[in-house]
């Protein structure tokens, strides 16, 4: 028997416990490519969350009528529909942002987070839980991208969201807005995340011993 998970937990777990970037290490391609600035990270995070939430809800609500042989094909159809909607809306309403993110919006189709959550969660749980799970994972992804984008933009161009945060005396680290900067920053963040998890585990162990 699986122990029941509370609804809030269903959302919260995506933020840290199974964070798509820091814990599942999924969706690395957009993560590394678009996070040259905070606004790009935010836009990519929002677009992915939108697709994730809507496709999870739809997939969960039709999970009982989709035959297992064609489930992946059906999921991809649903996901790509939402991705195309996002792409068109962004082109129509936010042309600048759409230009900055380039091909990475259409590429949300193949983002493993979305198919991963559809396969691992939405196809086995009810609509409400799938909605919360998708929202949690989306938020986790968004936060990670925002942190990554902010750090890279700050060190690479002295700004965050286009607002100058570092003094002019600071020489921008050009490498931070190049692909190498993405790998360095992500590597360090993953390292910190792992160290923190280990530290937490040890603390829990100790408290068990004391008891």
């Amino acid at each position, binding site marked *: 028997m699986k122990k029941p998970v509370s609804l809030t937990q269903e959302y919260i777990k995506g933020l840290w416990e199974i964070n798509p970037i820091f814990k599942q290490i999924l969706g690395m391609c957009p993560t590394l490519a678009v996070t*040259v600035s905070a606004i790009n990270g935010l836009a990519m995070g929002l677009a992915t969350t939108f697709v994730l939430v809507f496709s999870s809800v739809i997939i969960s609500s039709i999970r009982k*009528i*989709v*035959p297992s*042989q*064609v489930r992946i*094909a*059906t999921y991809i*159809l*649903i996901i*790509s*529909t939402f991705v*195309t*909607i996002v792409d*068109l*809306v962004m*082109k*129509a*309403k936010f*042309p600048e942002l759409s*230009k900055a993110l380039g091909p990475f919006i259409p590429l949300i189709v193949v983002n493993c987070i979305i198919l991963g959550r559809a396969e691992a969660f939405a196809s086995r749980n009810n609509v409400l839980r799938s909605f919360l799970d998708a929202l949690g994972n989306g938020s986790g992804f968004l936060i990670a991208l925002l942190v990554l984008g902010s750090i890279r933009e700050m060190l*690479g161009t002295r700004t965050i969201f286009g607002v100058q945060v570092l003094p002019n005396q600071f020489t921008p680290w*050009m490498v931070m*807005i*190049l692909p190498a900067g993405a790998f360095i920053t992500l590597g360090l963040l993953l390292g910190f995340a792992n160290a923190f998890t280990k530290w937490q585990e040890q603390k829990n162990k100790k408290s068990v011993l004391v008891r």
Partner: protein
Amino acid sequence: MKKTIHIISVLTLTATISALTLASVNNWAKPLIEENAIKAISEAIFQVQPSAKSYEKIPLDELKAFEVFDENKNSIGYAVVHQGNGFQGTIKLIFGIDKNLERITSIEILEQVETPGLGSLITEENYKNQFRSLSVNPVINLIKGKSKTADNQVKAITGATISSRAVVNIVNDAIRILRKYSKEEK
């Protein structure tokens, strides 16, 4: 058999709903996207031909070019959108040129994916300003390291020769096509 029909009907239904949704979204978005593109182009034209008041497209296949007019509807020159290969990908730019195809008014880079910090410096004023009233007779020349000796020379950006040369080549190519066109016209 029953299973097969089930599979086919689920996939068909999903695809149909998806197609219908996308068609309606596209219906709404298409005019907006076109409007954005036109707005971007006209903004760029007035940027490279600041004294222009109106423009008209020139019927050319190889080149997207516009003839620009002042307030009295006199032709004062051209604005040309052209693209070519840069260091990593396509560079798309727009430049303005006078009526006799002799001097460039100004240049703007519309799209580029050059290396940030090196090739991407082609979008900075330092580089673009070199094109202000630059002579294109007979062509624009790229020089490296030394200082300018003639008024048809552009200095390459240190560490980004390929990107600098790409911009010059794109402009030269566009002017070549435009010259051919204006000869035919006369």
